């Protein structure tokens, strides 16, 4: 462009001092992080999750008991600080504090890994189907529909027999394999919407190839909604694992997950309520925290749902004040 001289039509567009212009540059990610940082509930939930996770990692190693040590002196002992079993013991005299923390380990691990599996498969499957469109899209999504139509318990039982009951890797795969279907659908829907956006068209007009468009333009714009969906999936996965363990299809004795502990506790509910309460309380707190984090993420990633309007932008045709016509007012 060196042969060109600056055009005459140049100069500043907006004589108005725009408050946005004077701020340091912020990427959409930084903005989202800033909004998330301002959300007290979500931060508290994050702190709690981290605390519980740390306890689950450190707790069992410092405790004198093992998750499968039987203490014959204290069978079904109630909780209390006077004994060495803070949360009491179960019928076999195993320390419930250690077992609950072990349960958290396994539940969190399954929740995170199964979510990761479902996000990776779902993101790839959904974005390719959505961007390719046409027959490819039809075939890929019909495949998803067929899997959806199979009763998932049936799938789980098949996988469980295939991998052997209580195989943890098998459990991740099973839960992930069921979870990615919804992710794929969400991702495909988002991709379809993105595909029609003008900046994608601009990239095509520039001559960016399909992998380049997917990798540089589609997927980065999907990360927001997918991350949000993933945080809301983790509690689902934990719950699903608990459910499987409750049915006896998940983690096998003597290992424990929160679900199997709740199952054991439920049998003793009448005589020894602590066996149910401890794991149930931890599970509830974890689920609540993940949901709060998810809420915070949604608000941070999608500020359009919050009330503050953006400062004046020089745009006219789209977007108007959010007011109803006088007629529709009560």
């Amino acid at each position, binding site marked *: 462009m060196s042969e060109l001289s600056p055009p005459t039509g*140049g100069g500043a567009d907006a004589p108005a001092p725009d408050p946005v212009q004077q701020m340091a540059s912020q990427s959409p990610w930084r903005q989202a992080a800033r909004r998330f940082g301002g959300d007290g509930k979500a931060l508290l939930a994050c702190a709690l999750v981290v605390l519980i996770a740390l306890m689950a990692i450190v707790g069992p190693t410092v405790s004198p008991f093992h998750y499968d040590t039987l203490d014959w002196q204290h069978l079904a002992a109630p909780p209390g600080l006077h004994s060495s079993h803070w949360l009491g013991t179960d019928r076999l005299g195993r320390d419930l504090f250690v077992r609950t923390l072990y349960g958290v380990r396994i539940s969190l691990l399954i929740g995170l890994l199964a979510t990761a599996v479902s996000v990776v498969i779902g993101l790839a499957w959904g974005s390719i189907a959505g961007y390719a469109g046409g027959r490819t899209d039809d075939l890929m999504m019909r495949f998803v529909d067929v899997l959806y139509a199979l009763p998932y318990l049936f799938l789980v039982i098949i996988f469980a027999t295939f991998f052997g009951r209580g195989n943890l890797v098998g459990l991740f795969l099973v839960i992930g394999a069921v979870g990615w279907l919804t992710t794929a659908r969400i991702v495909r829907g988002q991709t379809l919407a993105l595909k029609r956006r003008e900046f994608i068209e601009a990239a095509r007009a*520039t001559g960016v190839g399909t992998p380049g468009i997917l990798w540089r333009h589609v997927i980065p714009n999907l990360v927001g909604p997918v991350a949000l969906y993933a945080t809301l999936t983790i509690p689902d996965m934990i719950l699903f694992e608990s459910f499987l363990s409750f049915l006896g299809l998940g983690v096998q004795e003597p290992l424990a997950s929160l679900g199997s502990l709740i199952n054991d506790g439920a049998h003793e509910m009448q005589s020894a309520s602590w066996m149910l309460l401890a794991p149930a309380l931890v599970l509830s707190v974890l689920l609540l925290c993940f949901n709060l984090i998810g809420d915070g993420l949604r608000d941070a990633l999608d500020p359009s749902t919050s009330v503050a309007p953006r400062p004046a932008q020089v745009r006219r045709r789209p977007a108007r004040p959010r007011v109803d016509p006088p007629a529709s007012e009560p």
Partner: protein
Amino acid sequence: MPALVHTSDAPVLRLENLHVDFDTSRGRVAAVRGISLSVKPGECLGVVGESGAGKSQAFLAAMGLLAPNGTASGRATFGTTELIGRTPAELDRVRGLKVGMVFQDPMTSLTPHIHVGDQIAEPLVMHVGVTWREARLRALALLRRTRVTDPERRMKQYPHELSGGMRQRVMLAIALACEPTLLIADEPTTALDVTVQAQILALLADLKRERAMSMVLITHDLGVVAGLANEVAVMREGQIVEQGEAGAILKSPRHPYTRQLIEAMPRIDAPAAEIAPAADTAQAPPLSVSDLSVNFGVRKGLVSRAKLRAVDGVSFELRSGEALGIVGESGCGKSTLARAALRLIRATSGRVVWMGRSIERLSAHELRPMRRELQIVFQDPLASLEPRMTVAQILAEPLRIHQRKLTAAARDAEVLEMLRHVGLTPDLLERYPHELSGGQCQRVGIARAMVLKPRVLVCDEPVSALDVSVQKQVVDLLIALKRETGMSILFVSHNLAVVKQLCERVLVLYLGRVMELAPSAELFVRPLHPYTRELLSAVPVADPEVQPARFARSVAGEPPSPLDPPSGCVFRTRCPHAIERCRDQVPPLEQAGDHRQVACHRWREL
């Protein structure tokens, strides 16, 4: 509430030292900073300003319709009633009943799931207390009054079944239902086509005369104000910079900002500023299209599919170094034509030739290296930029793809050079699109398209989302770039005045067919096709002496559905000169003079 008694010229609405502030995450933003205005009975006040001037917010505040984080202070008096600080219940006795409001986007202002007739009847039931039966009868009369075609059928239709113009008429009917003393129209025609805009403005002028109603017309377009307003207030950054009698302000503006606004508005009735340099006809055209058609399948019921002919047998040649304008109303297929020419959409039939090479048999892969010669600039400047990339990354992307051998340093230098060239400063390089103004975004969009030095730049409504003064800067930039690089421009626009400034030739499209193709020097002086004439006369002119007369000439009707185009000449249903023959025979595109083509049976006689 005390009865509203007007003495002869006590103002209907008076704003005194009105302030509007918004609490945002970045602190308090003042949108309106102490304005004072008054609307006299039976008169129209035009409030003019660019986006962000606070013109809408001032009147929303007066009506108690601010967003929850907005606060208003000062005084707004309607008749003898103070409006600021009232509860919604008290305001409801004024809103809708005494004051009607019409907003820019009639689609989002109407409730999607309620029959149009019931939406008009609702304020009557709410405010006047008539029965639904009675209210529906009055609604029908209102639809007739706002000149809605086929009003009986419309009563039972939903908003999405109506065209934009019809929806805006319905909004007007709702606003007028309770015979208000004041009508506030906020950009009522901005989202509409020029032809429909002319119809709505003529209707507003009629209503104002007939009902002796006061009116506030909020707009960015001085042409819209010219024919209607008695007084004009020009706003900028929340303040009124100039206020007075409409004729005086438009004819001899005193404030430099008003002058700048008027100068930025291209005049359709002004003589062409300069004769454009003759396009180079010797060289092979970089883009040519022959007999191009694009059909879309539209699902109709469960199995059957209807064929929508978006573009129907269009041929043109874009010569080297020329700017060709494609104009027409929305839905006429102009954007589809531009996209098909770039093969962003597959054409159904016809030939597209890029730099002498026919492209319809080439695969997407083979096409990619050729794409650098043909670039596109989009309408919505923000939506066309990747939100997660900085300006530097956006501008570097085309270079990364087409000039892989370029070193990072050379690439940066090139990006910087291009940025300067479109009139932006280097400190914007690390900004994200959402941190730029609309005009800056569009300059980045142009820079991205120009960074590969293409031979053809396709501009799809590049200025219609921008403010008038920014529009002028962007058009000037395009003119300058074209002169310096010798590239060709395919300029798609519904704004004839802008096309006139930029283009050497103009192609007029209607329902996917070419109506007229002519050099702009001739087209704007002596249009041959009746449709071209209608289009030209619909463009408002910011001159209170000329504009009222132009209302009288506005065209009736709206384009028919492209799913079911009329037989013969597609324009015949709206053409004032249609004869028997127009229904039976499709008029061929005939040569009319050396460089002109026109598709009309009667162009010779008219």
